[in-house]
């Protein structure tokens, strides 16, 4: 699970090393990556909403 989260975070930043990428692509469960990606994107959006609310006070 932790490797999946790490890969999604790396994708968010846009930087990943080749060894991890090969490992990710050898997995046969893409659904886990997609679901984690959606959840982390939502968390990122919530973080931005929180920061904007903080700034608007």
């Amino acid at each position, binding site marked *: 699970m932790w490797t999946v989260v790490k890969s999604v975070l790396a994708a968010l930043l846009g930087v990943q*090393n080749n060894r991890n990428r090969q490992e990710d692509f050898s997995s046969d469960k893409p659904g886990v990556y997609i679901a984690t990606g959606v959840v982390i994107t939502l968390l990122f959006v919530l973080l931005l909403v929180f920061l904007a609310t903080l*700034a608007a006070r």
Partner: protein
Amino acid sequence: MRSRCWWLLVMTFAASGSQAQTNGWNMPVGVTDVSGDIYGLHMTIFWICVVIGVLVFGAMFYSLFRYRHSKGAKAANFHEHTSVEVLWTAIPILILVGMAVPATATLKNMYDASDAELDVMITGQQWRWRYEYLGEDVAFTSNMSTPRAQISGEEARGEHYLLEVDEPLVLPTDRKVRFLMTSDDVIHSWWVPDLAVKQDTIPGFINENWVKINEPGIYRGQCAELCGIDHGFMPVVVHAMEEEEFDGWLAERKAAAEEEAMGVDREWEMEELVERGESVYQSICSSCHQAEGQGSPPAFPALANNEQLISDVDWHLDKVINGVSGAAMPAFRSTLNPVELAAVVTYTRNAWGNDTGDVVQPSEVAELIAQ
């Protein structure tokens, strides 16, 4: 080589320090706290860009020169370097967030029009500005006063060519003034660089903005949204006065407005009306119907020797008060007061050979408007 790069940077900074004030190339520092903040942000971000530019292009040109082919340089052939990639992703993020923090603080301040001590309604019209001091019963239109002869090249251009008006917007210093901005016809934009205000005025909407001017003076600007043929001929002039002087000015204008309101009921002489009407005509009507009433057909019909106008005073009054729908002629019922309306109609009915002898009284016009 490295020390030479630094030397270049230091020199660039030193050159900038001596010309922090505007010299015509840069944006103005302005005369409000907000305009100073905006100028500060602009310069901070500019210098961040300069530093980035010098570092990036410095590294590039240095590498091009130092590792050139003729010296037998061999290209490195490694593929990835995760820590460098993370670094060059993280640094721009930090720079952007670092710029966003002060920019957000300034924006929040700019949008906070609360606790204003004076409200001024600004209305854009083709092609003039109307200012209304809300709750003070003072309102007037501000027209460009540059003579047409200067525009057509028959006279030398004055110092404030196209940036001068008959009546400037008068504002107090050290007092927060809220602007409520709208338009009667198309979208205009009220722009005064020294006040750091550039706000669209949109028909059917009311936009807010505010200023608190620190220094008395005359500040000039223009309409900044293409709004028709005379877009370039509707300048903005703001006259900022010390608070006491402003209060005196406002009281004077209030008294004059009251006197004008009383003038509606009395009987006016033809000469008075013609004299008043001529000045109204030259500031309001002449931009379309031309100084001698010759018009500019087909969009702007001639008024001189216009048979319909000469024969039908009711038709004439209706067009001036209610405008012509679907044409460029606006309704002047709320822009001009009954005295001005009566005066300008009387004037046009008796000028340039339209010798009708008709006199329209302000009281008649007031009755027509009330209907």
